[in-house]
């Protein structure tokens, strides 16, 4: 697995809660986030990192999005 840093559009509400709204993939394609089902602190053993892990639904598929020290990454496939 690769550690793929991505751009994210997120909403910061007045209470300080952060909600990611969409992800821009390496090739420029934008994927809106349909739903966030879980948010916990977690390590990514696959990509090698640690931060707040959002379980998000994009186009009906579930994936992990990590917020690690002001940067966002996803666990990408190799190659």
């Amino acid at each position, binding site marked *: *697995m690769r550690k793929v840093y991505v751009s994210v559009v997120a909403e910061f509400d007045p209470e300080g809660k952060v909600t990611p709204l969409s992800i821009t993939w390496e090739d420029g394609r934008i994927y809106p986030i349909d739903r966030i089902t879980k948010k*916990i*602190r*977690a*390590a*990514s*053993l*696959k*990509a*090698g*990192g*640690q931060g707040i892990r959002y379980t998000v639904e994009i186009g009906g598929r579930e994936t992990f999005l990590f917020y690690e020290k002001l940067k966002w990454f996803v666990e990408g496939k190799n190659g």
Partner: protein
Amino acid sequence: MERVILHSDMNNFYASVECLYNPGLRNHPVVVGGDPLLRHGIVLAKNEIAKRYGIQTGEVLWRAKQKCPKLICTKPHFDLYLEFSRMAREIYCEYSDRVESYGLDECWLDVTESIGLLGSGKKIADEIRTRVKAELGITSSVGVSYNKIFAKLGSDYRKPDATTVITPQNYKEIVWSLPVGELLFVGQATARKLNRYGIRSIGDLAQNDVNVLEYLLGKNGRMLWNFANGWDRSPVAHENAAMLVKSIGNQMTAPRDLVSREEIKITLYLLAESVAERLRAQRFRCRTVQIQVRDNTLFTYERQGKLRSPSCLSSELFEKALSLFDEKKATERPIRSLGLRACSLCPEEDQQLSFFEEAVQRQKKETVEREVDRIRSRFGHFSIQRGIMLTDPQLSAFHPAEDHLIHPELFFKNFSDTKE
């Protein structure tokens, strides 16, 4: 009431953090080591695979490489370790308000008051292990017992990723068969001494005559005897208990051996500036200055002397340190490392006021040094330097305050009320 104490130990801490961030390393023998070019080339931590080659913490890197030619050596990232240590503590604090760190990777928790709510000590221990693994990506081992000493032995008993419970019923089977050197505070020298008298296991120690032990080891003999029998009543400190600062010091191994007086002066200035900055940041002054000198044969000595009045000025610390170095020299060989320590601390509010000219001068100097602190915090450490530093850029490139030296917290202060 019997206490329930946990000791959590994150396995191979530095190496685990490095392997987490570099998954490619995970299946190789890995050590975290200092920079050999700066002569900090020793093993700070190793992973399980490196351990199998017999590599030991504290060993010099070239020797470790001889044992395992494929060894991968990574540089330490202390900021990450501090961050992970803080996050682990956050988890622990969800289970108890009595949480006491012992170094960055170890911690005691007194969960006596929590078991009614959260389940047995073992259940809490397992839950903590699961959470640390999921949230931080690091395995840990946890010891559960009725005192701190046995809890610590429990966390060492089975590694990695395991819980060991030591009770008043089973401690003789588990603890007493262990070699005496496993007991906290039995170092190599004490273990050798005890072995010489036929005391090889912790059980031997526990069943020995306490008067004999006291004769051999002084009052520590009685303390260790108590520990071996599980009679340790020392409390787990409260989570926000203030850490008692007794002294502030820095030590540096120079990138090359120091021969000239100029080199000694540069190094002492670096240390004095760092220590003085930390004194001011923590609102302390010191009455005593101590230096530690190590030459290239590793012969080491310490000297200390009193200041005329309490100070937080780098110039005064430096002058004292240099005069200690000059007047009480114990070696003529090139110097490998120097340390400077500010002792007998007092709070800065306790300053004696004075009308004399000298006091006014010192006040001015302090204002200047505080201004330097401010400039450095805004623009970086090297934005402002003493002229002498420019004469030797290799030596002065070192910045002790950022080059963390992390020592386990003083432990003995809590071990006064041991039951007899």
